[in-house]
């Protein structure tokens, strides 16, 4: 007790008010404030290091080595930029980069258009709106494997529902005229549709939340100002949604650019590499075929760098727009 009392007198009043230990006279074991702060931060810093920085650092590190994936413990041999040079000269890499870019752009654009359209519908009042709002999340909540299995059945050339429908309308001469996932173009479209379907509810939810906070009196002011429905949509709704759409587009791009499971489960990157995206190439290089972990890491690092560049440019652009 005496000790605590002494400290209180010795220290400026400010500090002992801020420090929890001094208030109640907790007991003899006293941790100095600066250590207490560090101790409280430590768990989150450790988790952050373990979960984010370590894998990233390890990936970059291994990209400078030649390592067999089945023999990671040896550490491999240092090869400098060899893996990166291999990459630049590799036709498959450039093809996969092109496919990934196209896939991301098309999927994200469609998700945004579809998601916004559905959100606008759900924002208008109709009977059973709450129920539909709940149901719309359904694809988003389904496990990817289940989604893919269902769509594989739908796309099936012989007994799939999609072909059956197109056939019964009379667009194709025979039920099995389109082998959806066997033809390069239709396989790409097929995978795009599934990716759009699975993740557009994300856009719906966010856009809907934004729509609901657009002040109603803006529309009323615009009505009085003489703006028709189309002007009101572009000048108010879309303009108010702009910021949130830009962020959603960025999030979806990062996600879909890195997405492995949908494409791999549906097509394994085929047919004829029509759906070979970068994540699949990483997988094939590092874990399949070559088992070259270093090269796989190099591709992954390049993907990361590309996304970082896109994000940087994007945020620069956003900030400039904001200042206008």
């Amino acid at each position: 007790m005496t000790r605590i009392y002494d400290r209180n007198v010795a220290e400026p009043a400010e500090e002992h008010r801020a420090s929890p230990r001094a208030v109640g006279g907790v007991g003899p074991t006293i941790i100095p404030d600066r250590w207490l702060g560090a101790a409280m931060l430590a768990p989150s810093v450790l988790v952050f290091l373990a979960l984010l920085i370590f894998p990233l650092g390890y990936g970059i590190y291994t990209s400078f080595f030649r390592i067999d994936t089945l023999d990671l413990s040896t550490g491999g041999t240092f090869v400098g930029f060899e893996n990166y040079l291999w990459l630049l000269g590799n036709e498959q890499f450039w093809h996969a980069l092109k496919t990934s870019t196209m896939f991301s752009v098309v999927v994200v654009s469609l998700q945004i258009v579809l998601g916004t359209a559905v959100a606008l519908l759900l924002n208008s009042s109709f009977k059973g709106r709450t129920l539909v709002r709940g149901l719309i999340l359904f694809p988003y909540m389904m496990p990817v494997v289940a989604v893919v299995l269902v769509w594989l059945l739908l796309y099936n050339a012989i007994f799939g529902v999609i072909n059956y429908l197109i056939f019964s309308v009379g667009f194709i001469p025979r039920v099995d005229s389109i082998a959806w996932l066997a033809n390069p173009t239709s396989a790409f479209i097929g995978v795009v549709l599934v990716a759009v379907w699975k993740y557009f509810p994300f856009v719906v939810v966010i856009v809907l939340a934004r729509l609901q906070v657009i002040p109603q009196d803006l529309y009323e002011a615009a009505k009085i100002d003489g703006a028709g429905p189309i002007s009101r949509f572009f000048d108010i709704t879309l303009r108010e949604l702009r910021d949130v759409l830009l962020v959603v587009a960025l999030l979806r791009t990062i996600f879909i650019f890195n997405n492995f499971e949908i494409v791999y489960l549906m097509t394994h990157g085929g047919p004829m590499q029509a759906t070979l995206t970068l994540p699949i190439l990483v997988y094939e290089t590092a874990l399949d075929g070559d088992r070259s972990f270093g090269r796989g890491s190099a591709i992954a690092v390049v993907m990361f760098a590309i996304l970082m560049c896109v994000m940087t440019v994007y945020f620069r652009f956003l900030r400039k727009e904001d200042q206008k």
Partner: protein
Amino acid sequence: MASVKFDKLRKVYGKDVVAVAGLDFEIPDGLFVSLVGPSGCGKSTALRMIAGLEEPTSGRLIFGDQDVTDREPRNRDIAMVFQSYALYPHMTVSENLQYGLKKRGVSSEERSISVKRIAHMLHIETFLDRKPRQLSGGQRQRVALGRALIRDPEVFLLDEPLSNLDAKLRVHMRAELATLHQRLRKTMIYVTHDQLEAMTLSDRIVVMNHGVVQQIGSPAEIYNSPSNRFVAEFMGTPSMNMIPCTLKQENGEPRLIAKNLSIPLSKQVASLASRTEVALGVRSEDFEIGAPGIVGGVDARVLVAELTGAEKYIYLELADAKVIARAPADSPICAGDNVSLSFKPHQMHVFDGRGDEAAALRAA
């Protein structure tokens, strides 16, 4: 030419929320008219029906000689200032001002001339390139006014445009609005729950309660001859004092009696009363406070004396009722004093009953 005529205009929300129970009057062209009443009495609803933002349940709305009940807001030649200003957040002040003109196909040269003119008039030239969020409340308020003025409409609708401003700015903008109306001489319909704003700005005041018009008249009429107890108590600060009385005949003369109070009433007024339970209404400035025992006065006890700056509010107990009287700021009266109150005979209001609807009894 745009007078605004309400022809039994009524609005019912859902099945039974009667927001406006039937407006039936005409606002002559060029007047400044205030709709006042407590919160929820249907002022905004009435204004929104004029704007075309709310469809009336029944009745017609006529501007000048044209029935506009079924017209779109943009075809009504009106402009509206919203309580929240409703400025377009992503447009600059200048774009906000121009928007209505642009949507009406006015050329960009003409638009920029108009913007200059309005900006000059409202002293907002220096922030034409700013976004609304970079403006203070008062500046936003001006831009909102500017957006209404720029189109030069026949009828201006203002829904509590000053209620988001601080007291000082409100007084200032009130004066600016008054000047503006003097200059433009356009019909302005102004919604407020602040009776002082209504008193100072208006040519005519429409007092509403529960969706029903209580009285229409000039500020002086409304203040000096309120038609019922609701209007009497709503208009004026402090509120008109109400002393419950009984109407009795004494020696053949009608008198208002309450405890130690007994005031003669003219026979003419007394004959209008439909009951004996009446209320005597006296504004705080219509009392005279004197030394106790003065002839013709009524003894009362001072509860509190409150200095407001320019004058003192004296809270008194008079015949079981609590009343407020005004006294000069330097008056020595203080709590606990016994005084004598006398009434200015022509400034007394007698109400036929004790409820809000109790009509004022007045000799013709």
